[in-house]
């Protein structure tokens, strides 16, 4: 056992000295995730409100004005301009000045009086699917309510839906996005730090020297993981504090459970960093490979898009991405107040992935002694 990890302590001690000797790198490594969290945390808001809307009202009646008022009062639409012709209506949307166009035909009021069906045209710019979806469903809801009010005089509805959003009652975007962002930022920083530290040794020839000493591959790997793991853990605490204080995201579960269940994720990303470092010859290569892990973890981990909506092939891929499991842990504990009892399986998968990555990197290291 001791042989397997030979050299761990001196490698670990030396690595801490490297970190302390290079305050510039340390500073940027710790500061950049914090800045990015602040930047993206404020920037990302998926709640659709006040969509710029252009109106072409050919009816000009009390009825048409009442309909427009109910659109305006929904908070989803902002009736900001009025068109004088069909062409102008389309042109405003094409030019990007409005995302929704409402056209009320001249026979609107008359048809309402007659009891025949009055039509209202709602044009939606589909170039942003979130906005389009929200616009369509709200427009449908608004007109449906107007119709019902006419059919059921006195306004008493037979059925009333009372939606109640659990766990994130205000449906604040920050609550949903910031926990995921933590995973991404932590991952990038950790992978980059450890991968660069190994590749730097390869570039300077000290790795070659180490292969000639009795240092065991696992001693070297784990010795390097400890200092960067400690750094990443501090960073995690800092990011969580910012999430709580700046973005006011409450942690419904146990903070202790959150910190403990973050350790398997740190293990995994450190392992991924080591695998990258075993492939990369230069620091530039290591940097590119590290950056290459970002997009899959953003798009396929459930951070932005629902995994359940992906084609089966991509669902399979998302299961191979460590971030997927960590985001489940983060959202589970932070938003839903879940505990280790519900989330342990994710931690187990992450631990297994981490150990596999470390063994893979160690094997690569042994083989490379041979080149």
């Amino acid at each position: 056992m001791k042989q397997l990890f030979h050299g761990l302590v001196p490698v670990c001690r030396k690595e801490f000295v490297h970190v302390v000797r290079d305050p510039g790198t340390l500073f940027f490594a710790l500061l950049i995730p914090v800045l990015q969290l602040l930047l993206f945390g404020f920037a990302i808001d998926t709640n659709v409100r006040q969509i710029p809307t252009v109106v072409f009202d050919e009816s000009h009646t009390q009825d048409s004005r009442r309909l427009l008022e109910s659109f305006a009062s929904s908070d989803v639409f902002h009736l900001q301009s009025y068109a004088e012709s069909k062409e102008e209506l389309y042109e405003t949307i094409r030019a990007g000045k409005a995302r929704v166009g409402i056209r009320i035909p001249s026979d609107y009021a008359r048809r309402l009086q007659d009891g025949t069906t009055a039509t209202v045209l709602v044009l939606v710019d589909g170039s942003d699917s979130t906005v389009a979806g929200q616009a369509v469903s709200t427009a449908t809801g608004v007109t449906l309510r107007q119709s019902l009010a006419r059919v059921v005089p006195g306004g008493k509805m037979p059925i009333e839906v009372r939606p109640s959003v659990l766990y994130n009652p205000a449906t604040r975007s920050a609550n949903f996005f910031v926990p995921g962002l933590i995973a991404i930022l932590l991952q990038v920083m950790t992978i980059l730090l450890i991968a660069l530290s190994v590749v730097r040794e390869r570039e300077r020839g000290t790795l070659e020297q180490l292969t000639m000493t009795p240092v065991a591959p696992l001693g070297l790997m784990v010795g390097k993981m400890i200092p960067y793991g400690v750094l990443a853990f501090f960073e995690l605490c800092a990011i969580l504090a910012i999430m709580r204080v700046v973005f006011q995201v409450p942690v419904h579960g146990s903070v202790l459970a959150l910190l403990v269940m973050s350790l398997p994720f740190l293990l995994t990303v450190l392992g991924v960093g080591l695998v990258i470092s075993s492939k990369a010859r230069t620091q530039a290569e290591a940097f590119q490979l590290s950056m290459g892990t970002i997009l899959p973890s953003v798009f396929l981990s459930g951070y932005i898009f629902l995994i359940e909506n992906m084609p089966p092939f991509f669902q399979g891929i998302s299961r191979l991405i460590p971030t997927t499991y960590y985001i489940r842990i983060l959202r589970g504990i932070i938003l839903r107040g879940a505990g280790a009892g519900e989330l342990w399986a994710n931690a187990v998968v992450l631990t297994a992935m981490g150990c596999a990555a470390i063994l893979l990197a160690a094997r690569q290291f042994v083989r490379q002694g041979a080149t």
Partner: protein
Amino acid sequence: MTATITAEHLTIRFGSFTAVHDVSLEVGQGELFGFMGPNGSGKTTIIKALCGLLKPSEGAGTILGLDIRRDATEIRRRVGYMSQKFGLYEDLTVAENIAFYAGVYGLRGRQAEQRKDEVLGLTGIEPYLKRRAGQLSGGWKQRLALACAIIHSPEVVFLDEPTAGIDPVARRALWDLFFRLSGQGVTFFVTTHYMDEAERCGRVGYIYLSKLIAIGTVAELQRLPEANPPGTSRIQIPAANPSAMLDAVRRIAGVREATIFGRSIHALVDTDRIASLKEEVPEAGVETIEPSLEDVFVTLTYRIMEASP
């Protein structure tokens, strides 16, 4: 003489490329063995194989009686290695570098302190203990690298071009250290491009195109029949303007090789042409000389180059 390092018909292939071809050699305890050859001829590969870092494709080898195929871990514990890149951490101080390697070799407590004092005393690097390794001059970097490479009192030390790019004074100081250690029974295996360094070695091997083509003491190599083809002599022609004279000498029939040595020209010529040569360059005296080590290696290399198109 007990053999500390042995290699028997060692062959190492990387895919279809043969980096080392059928190399056999023996180095005795306390010997300072010099290993020469052009870049890429397989010097470093042999060192890696002897240290157990590379499994030979064919052949066998031992170090201190340990099998290089099976006992790699034990070999690494008892062998020191220093490369031309030094393997130092430039942002760590001299003391930290030494402490790191002491730790890596598993030295602890009193034993570690004692060894540190010993290597400091030997290399004289004590005044620079608190300095970062990156701020040392080339010569001191090398002494530090040597201190790190011998911290665990290895019985065998491999030095891969230890003096590349170092000034002559620092080089001599380093070689004095090698001799002191070798006097204490440490076996050295040194690769170098410097002929004067090779001439200091007890025995020298010359590897060319993956094959060991000559091995022996300097005197033995100088008398090698391949280096002194029958019917030829090595001569020295003093010259006031050697570079102007070189082309003239090369054009003379019977001159096989000619090169400049300071203010004279060294040439390998057919012995029966010496008389006529004296007539063609009348102003210079011609004397017969022993081949230098460089002459030997150049002649051997030309022979192989001519044999293989």
